[in-house]
């Protein structure tokens, strides 16, 4: 690629995504107009619902925790050139890990059982990613298709386990017993009250910090370790990685397992901390939204934290919105997410030729301003 085809960083990672986001939001607003509501009013309700009061903020960050885990999972795999769309299934299996620990060792001290539960979610998530990873590394099976299949297999497996094995005697509901009180992860409002700070009760809990820690860990791993360098090389050019003596099979398998572990930890927030039991389809959709989060965050931890909070706002604000305006059902949020994925992800290059033209015209003075990119 020549200089003519490049843009300064602030345009590439700042302005272009912003334009795409504005496009996605404009189309969402158009849909709101079509169904006869006022987009400005809707946006107001959405933002107030997400950020206007303490409970709303709590819920926003609670949802953001989920998106952080799944977004980081997708991003880690992206760096190795892998597309893990199996976050859904890996998170589901992570829940199984949590349930096995929390139901089988009810008498352990919290300082032992909580770390065990966290490790179990990560381990089971990684295990569910391991098989597609192994098949990709050793047999060349495309990880996109295998992870989709593993999502669906996880759905069947977990509903079987929840209906026939894990649900307590005498109930027909596909959920487990309540986890032991020892595995309760402190809620934010409880913790703040220890310091004498009043905060409305919400599901926001310590897992949020675990997710932030994971984001920091991902940054260290990808940009500050030897292994991270191997991952990025593999993602940038698999043949270069091979020439450099990097075992691509090893990189693929380890990266996918890390990715699966991160997705699995969604269960720490959803099952261990909030539901305190395993419920059927608890991972509902969070795994897929992780793709949008990673795209929006440009696969960088800081970006992913911001994108998670944005999606948390959408989720919580959207729930309030569906409550306030009955014509707008909660699926509006699914549509907005779809549009964001479309514009930020699939159509990310849409404005690039235009932007190249504009930028090089503006920044010109030299003669070589013609843009080689013709579409």
């Amino acid at each position: 690629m020549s200089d003519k085809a490049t843009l300064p960083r602030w345009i590439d990672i700042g302005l272009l995504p912003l334009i795409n986001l504005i496009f996605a939001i404009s189309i969402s607003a158009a849909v709101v107009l079509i169904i006869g509501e006022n987009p400005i009013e809707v946006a107001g309700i959405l933002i107030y619902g997400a950020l206007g009061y303490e409970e709303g903020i709590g819920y926003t960050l609670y949802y953001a925790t989920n998106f952080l885990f799944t977004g980081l999972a997708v991003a880690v795999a992206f760096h190795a050139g892998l597309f893990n769309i199996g976050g859904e299934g890996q998170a589901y299996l992570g829940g199984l890990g949590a349930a096995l620990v929390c139901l089988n060792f009810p008498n352990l001290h919290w300082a032992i059982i909580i770390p065990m539960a966290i490790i179990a979610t990560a381990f089971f998530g990684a295990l569910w990613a391991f098989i597609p990873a192994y098949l990709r590394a050793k047999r060349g099976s495309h990880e996109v298709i295998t992870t989709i299949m593993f999502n669906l297999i996880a759905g069947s497996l977990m509903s079987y386990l929840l209906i026939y094995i894990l649900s307590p005697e005498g109930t027909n509901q596909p959920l487990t017993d309540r986890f032991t009180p020892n595995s309760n992860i402190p809620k934010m409002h409880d913790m703040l009250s220890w310091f004498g700070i009043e905060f409305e009760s919400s599901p926001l809990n310590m897992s949020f910090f675990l997710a932030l820690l994971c984001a920091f860990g991902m940054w260290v791993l990808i940009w500050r370790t030897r292994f991270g360098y191997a991952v990025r090389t593999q993602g940038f050019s698999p043949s270069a990685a091979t020439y450099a003596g990097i075992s691509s099979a090893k990189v693929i398998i380890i990266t996918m397992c890390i990715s699966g572990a991160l997705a699995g930890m969604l269960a720490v927030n959803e099952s261990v901390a909030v539901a305190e039991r395993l419920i059927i389809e608890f991972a509902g959709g969070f795994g897929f939204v992780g793709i949008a989060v990673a795209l929006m965050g440009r696969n960088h931890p800081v970006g992913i934290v911001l994108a998670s909070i944005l999606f948390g706002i959408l989720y919580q604000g959207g729930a309030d919105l569906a409550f306030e305006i009955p014509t707008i059902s909660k699926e509006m949020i699914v549509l907005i997410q779809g549009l964001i994925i479309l514009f930020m992800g699939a159509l990310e290059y849409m404005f690039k030729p235009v932007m190249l033209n504009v930028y090089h015209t503006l920044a010109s003075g030299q003669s070589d301003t013609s843009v080689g990119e013709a579409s």
Partner: protein
Amino acid sequence: MFELFIVVLDSTVRLSVPLLFACLAGLYSERSGVFDIGLEGKMLVSAFFAAVVSFESGSVWIGLGGGIIASIALSLVHGVAAITFRGNQIISGVAINFIAAGLTPLLGNYWYKRGGSTPALADEGRFLPIHLPFAEEMKDVPYIGNIYEELISGHNFLVYLGFAAVGFTYWLLFKTRFGLRLRAVGENPTAVDTAGISVIALRYRAVIICGILCGIAGAYLSIAQSSGFVVNMSSGRGFIALAALIFAKWKPVNALFACLLFGFLEAVAIPLQTYDLPLIGKMPVQFIQATPYILTVILLAGFIGKAIPPKAGGEPYVKER
């Protein structure tokens, strides 16, 4: 026993047809080099609009057209993203599934206020069973009569169309110039381009055909198999079709058998739950539901033959390099 067997096969056919249309849809797209995991979303959108248009117009044919147009519209979104703007085809597919899952209940709820469902269709708004000639008369002939009356006769128009589409696809892909070019563009687009044929135009055509077939698949669900749309009606069939496509190794006749197999598994899943099988005991329905996916993974792993996707699949074509 024989009659039970025929009944199971009959519902196998019924359940296979939407898979078959979606599978063939994916076949055109992926053979041309455009991966499509958005089959599910296109089916869903088509099921919704087919039901809405059929209800509003009172004509099943206009309904079918409405579903197809909606599905083509989403196909073109995928095409614009994947072909023109060289975006990531997987991400575009995921986006389409989200958009469909969000848009259909939203509009359904806005128009009909029934929690996303559409009103029940009258008979003229649906594809009704077609009774082939002499089906009644032959009913009493042992075996053959039963097969003819129950299994071959008495399906709706789209079922017969689905089987015809397999033959048509085979002919189009392997016996025509267009088919040769379509397959070539999925394997080696540069060669096609060098021959002076537009890669972009060919891929767009494939994506539009994909939209038409997904449209029929979705319409089948809402205006043939049932009488109206319910939320998330496609319920993963687009993904089963995708699995079937891989299982069929991207070949049309194989696709028919893969879809029949997966349809058969769906047909026996519920009845099998109540029977005690020798050695195994009761077969949990979840296991049978997961079988198509497990089979596909095993096939992808190359343990029973090897599924090799079109070579240029998933890669946007860049003319000058």
